[in-house]
């Protein structure tokens, strides 16, 4: 068990080092591969954070340009994904500062448009459980949009990206205690909202 864990840890560290080396060289082939590999995860993170697909797509492109430009700053201490999400997080903050001097709070219901964050149709068969699951996902997606952006970010990084609390703290540039309280408050608020929606 320990040997397996050691093997995975070692290969992950090796991969991180190789990525860091490639980014310092600004290797375009490596970047192509990384864009392919992280496309869905990064877009999902940006979409949850901004709540708008067009903005998320713009920031998606900007993130990769920033990765190219700042590749020499990549930190081997964490996985590449942690650094990638930190870059995306900073770009979102920069975007909000350009619009209005605020924190991530400004991303909540920016235009008062609740339907901007859509769950796309899966195009699969309309079996009852699939419909039910889709309905539930829609409820959760809608509920997420009403949470403050900090809570959304913490929940997505923790439960969709499976990041450790330390990694989330590194991405969001906040202390560990803040991450814990954001996750707790985020889940509690989401639960309240979903309960309210069911009534």
């Amino acid at each position, binding site marked *: 068990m320990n040997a397996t864990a050691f093997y995975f840890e070692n290969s992950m560290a090796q991969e991180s080092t190789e990525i860091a080396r490639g980014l310092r060289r600004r290797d375009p082939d490596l*970047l192509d591969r990384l864009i392919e590999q992280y496309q869905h995860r990064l*877009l999902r993170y940006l979409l949850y954070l901004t709540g708008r697909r067009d903005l998320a797509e713009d920031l998606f*492109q900007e993130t990769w340009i920033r990765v190219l430009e700042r590749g020499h700053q990549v930190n081997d201490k964490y996985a590449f994904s942690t650094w990638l999400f930190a870059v995306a997080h900073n770009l979102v903050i920069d975007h909000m500062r350009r619009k209005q001097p605020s924190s991530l709070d400004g991303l909540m219901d920016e235009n008062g448009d609740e339907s901007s964050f859509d769950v796309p149709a899966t195009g699969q068969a309309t079996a009852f459980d699939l419909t039910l*699951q889709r309905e539930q996902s829609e409820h*959760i997606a809608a509920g997420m949009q009403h949470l403050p952006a900090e809570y959304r970010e913490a929940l997505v990084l923790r439960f969709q990206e499976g990041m450790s609390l330390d990694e989330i703290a590194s991405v969001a540039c906040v202390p560990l205690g803040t991450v814990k309280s954001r996750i707790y408050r985020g889940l509690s608020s989401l639960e309240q909202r979903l309960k309210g929606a069911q009534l």
Partner: protein
Amino acid sequence: MNSSRNNGAHERARKLIALAGPDALSTTNQLSTQSSNAWLAAHLERCSSCRAFAENTAEMVRGLRAIPIAADRSLVSTTQLKVRRRALELQRHRERVWLVSVSCAAVTLCALLSAVVLWRGFEWLGARAHLASSVWQVGFLVFCMMPALVVAILLLAKDRHLANHYGSYEG
């Protein structure tokens, strides 16, 4: 007293559940210590509201993970194209900076060498013409500054000419 202790226990349990997510109901969740796990399991045994919170949390997290979000193929290819273009720009910029740096170094070296040779030349001429050293030294300074002065005068003249030209159009 008893009720505040109970509230504290519920809050502690809910915080542990929130951090563990869907694993909260299993006794092997990785986030808490073994004693916390045991305490949480015992608490969930007797507290139905916290158990409901744990079940809801697990369901919410499962629902969250099930939301299908995918990047378009066109977004990916556009991004790759933009990144390649930017990489090319950066490479060209780096090459230009390198070229300018090398040119600056070469020019500085040439200037130093020629200054030494010129100094000797002016010294020799001054000695041949029986001039005071301050005279040939001023001559040396004027000679060295001449190219920069000529370029500055030309640039000023060009600016004035352009200003007159556009001024006449605006007038």
